[in-house]
């Protein structure tokens, strides 16, 4: 129970030349088809095993929602097949097709009936659904007066009232406030522990990395990559900047992590190092130690503007800190071809114990999306150990001044 197998799946929409073309095609079949097929999904193959959590990412229009709808059974595939075992609950877009004139309670009944539940069972579940949604007296108001967040709360509560074998969630959760997001992710985690298979579309990197075992990247209707969430996410970031003469390259490193390097190559990193106060390279630093991040790069072509940025990520890939020279109000202008530049960023390693990775990027303006010269993930790894500071947990060092009165 709870497996999804997608074989060679394709979805095409028919596009007709004119208003009358469809009628002509239907009534005069011997004249042949008069439509063109626009493929929005092609050659999709993957399997999700019982209890696995898989995230699907991709830019808008990559086909994520279409794929989920086909798996959930609302739209039909043009080619290939989807084999599913077990009961599916799907939260597609917003509202689960709520009827705006009926009250929340009536809609809950209808939605539950649409999930195949019968009257008494719904009556039994009702108090719990109400309690989970936490929308108070609104439950007896017509849905048209609900905010989109409230609709989502109710929809999520109904869809997950009974643990499904497979749960499909399409970005729906992003509408909710952070309180409800936490609450719903907790429920999703519980389901996972009990063996529910999860298929999730999200642009939220944190959500994908913290819940999913695996991620799929869709690009232009095709499966561009499949693998560990962090590596897929990095690749996705690189793809976001996909323009013209552009390369994206991924390498497995010794420690099993995948490094992504992407960009046009108009500027290249030469050396990236973390130094102590004496200028010696560091691999291990103590909590709170003053360190310097030294980055050297060379402009391979004449460049009107270069912004250098870096991010420090923890072992889960969450960003602990990131900035760039545009944020710091010091971008460089008018670089000549062949010019080498060195930047030094000095700071106290106010980090908790553990390993950290630094990603660096060279681009124009203040994000890497517009024009990406080079982006390197996992450019540098270092470890923080606690030497001489009192014990603490977490990834940030915020030493308090303690006072106690009694």
């Amino acid at each position, binding site marked *: 129970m709870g497996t999804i197998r997608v074989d060679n799946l394709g979805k095409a929409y028919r596009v007709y030349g004119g208003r009358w073309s469809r009628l002509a095609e239907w009534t005069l079949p011997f004249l042949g088809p008069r439509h063109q097929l626009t493929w929005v999904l092609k050659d999709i193959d993957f399997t999700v095993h019982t209890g696995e959590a898989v995230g699907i990412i991709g830019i808008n229009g990559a086909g994520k929602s279409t794929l989920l709808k086909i798996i*959930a059974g609302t739209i039909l595939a043009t080619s290939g097949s989807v084999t599913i075992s077990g009961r599916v609950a799907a939260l597609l877009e917003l509202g689960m097709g709520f009827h705006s004139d009926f009250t929340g309670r009536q809609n809950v009944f209808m939605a539950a009936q649409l999930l195949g539940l019968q009257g008494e069972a719904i009556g039994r579940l009702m108090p719990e659904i109400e309690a989970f949604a936490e929308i108070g007296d609104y439950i007896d108001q017509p849905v048209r007066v609900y905010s989109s967040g409230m609709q989502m709360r109710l929809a999520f509560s109904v869809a997950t009232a009974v643990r499904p074998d497979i749960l499909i969630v399409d970005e729906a959760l992003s509408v909710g406030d952070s309180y409800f997001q936490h609450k719903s992710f907790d429920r999703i985690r519980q389901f996972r522990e009990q063996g529910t298979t999860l298929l999730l579309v999200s642009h939220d990197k944190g959500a994908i990395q913290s819940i999913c075992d695996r991620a799929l990247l869709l690009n232009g209707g095709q499966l561009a990559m499949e693998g560990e969430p962090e590596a897929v996410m990095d690749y996705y970031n690189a793809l976001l900047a996909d323009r013209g003469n552009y390369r994206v390259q991924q390498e497995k490193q010794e420690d099993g992590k995948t490094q992504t390097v992407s960009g046009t190559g108009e500027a290249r990193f030469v050396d990236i190092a973390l130094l102590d106060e004496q200028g010696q390279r560091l691999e291990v630093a103590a909590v709170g130690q003053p360190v310097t991040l030294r980055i050297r790069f060379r402009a391979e072509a004449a460049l009107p503007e270069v912004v250098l940025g870096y991010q420090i990520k923890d072992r889960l890939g969450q960003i602990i800190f990131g900035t760039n020279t545009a944020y710091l109000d010091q971008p460089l202008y008018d670089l000549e071809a062949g010019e080498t530049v060195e930047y030094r960023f000095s700071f106290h390693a106010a980090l908790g114990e553990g390993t950290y990775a630094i990603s660096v990027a060279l681009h124009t303006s203040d994000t890497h999306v517009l024009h990406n010269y080079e982006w390197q993930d996992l450019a540098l790894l270092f470890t923080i150990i606690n030497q001489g500071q009192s014990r603490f947990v977490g990834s940030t060092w915020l030493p308090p001044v303690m006072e106690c009165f009694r």
Partner: protein
Amino acid sequence: MNLLKALWLYRGFISGSVKREFQAKYRNSLLGATWTILNPLAMIIVYTVIFSQVMRSRLPGVDTTFAYSIYLCAGVLTWGFFAEIVGRGQNVFLEHANLIKKISFPRICLPVIVILSAGLNFLIIFGLFTLFLAVSGNFPGWVYFTLFPVVAVQILFSIGLAIILGVLNVFFRDVGQLFGIVLQFWFWLTPIVYPLAILPEKVKSLMAFNPMATFVAAYQEVLVNGIMPNWHHFIWIAVVSLGLCIFALRLFRKRAGEMVDEL
């Protein structure tokens, strides 16, 4: 068989939807469901008072006070049932686009809901009409029960047509507009308000090709004249209705996937 199984599994949704639709109609009214009775009652009273008392219309060959009113009601109620199923059916997929796109459930539930909710209305209004017949001493006796197969076949015919129009309407919105006009002509081309007898012979023979004329005539014969429907005509219409239904289901199956893309 799969069809019936799916309908059974989703019986909760079907009965719930019928109930909701019924409630929705009177949700913000003070008298609530009483209106379900008041509306048809008013219609029956208007027809009886106007035609039997004010205009003193008489049916040729039948000389009782209420004959024409009963004739009219028999036709109008039957037509109303047919028009409700077809009218609602042709929009049923468009109306529920939101549901169809977001939730996976057997789509065939939707036309079934249309039949049941139109059937419920018909049951109420026809029940009242029957009560009126009994009270006014015009109840036709056991012949009344021959109407049951007539209603069954009429439903088959209506829903077949409704599904076909419903599917076509998704692709060609003109269908809905066009059929509104067709329905008006069809009403006046069926002997509902006027008796069949006033038509010229040539036109009369054409009535055999109007299925609604056959249905309406069956009700009129039973309720006004107290005689059984013409079963010869009826078998023919039953075959047509069945064929229409099969065609409708096949069209629906074939286009169901494309339909969702179009909604």
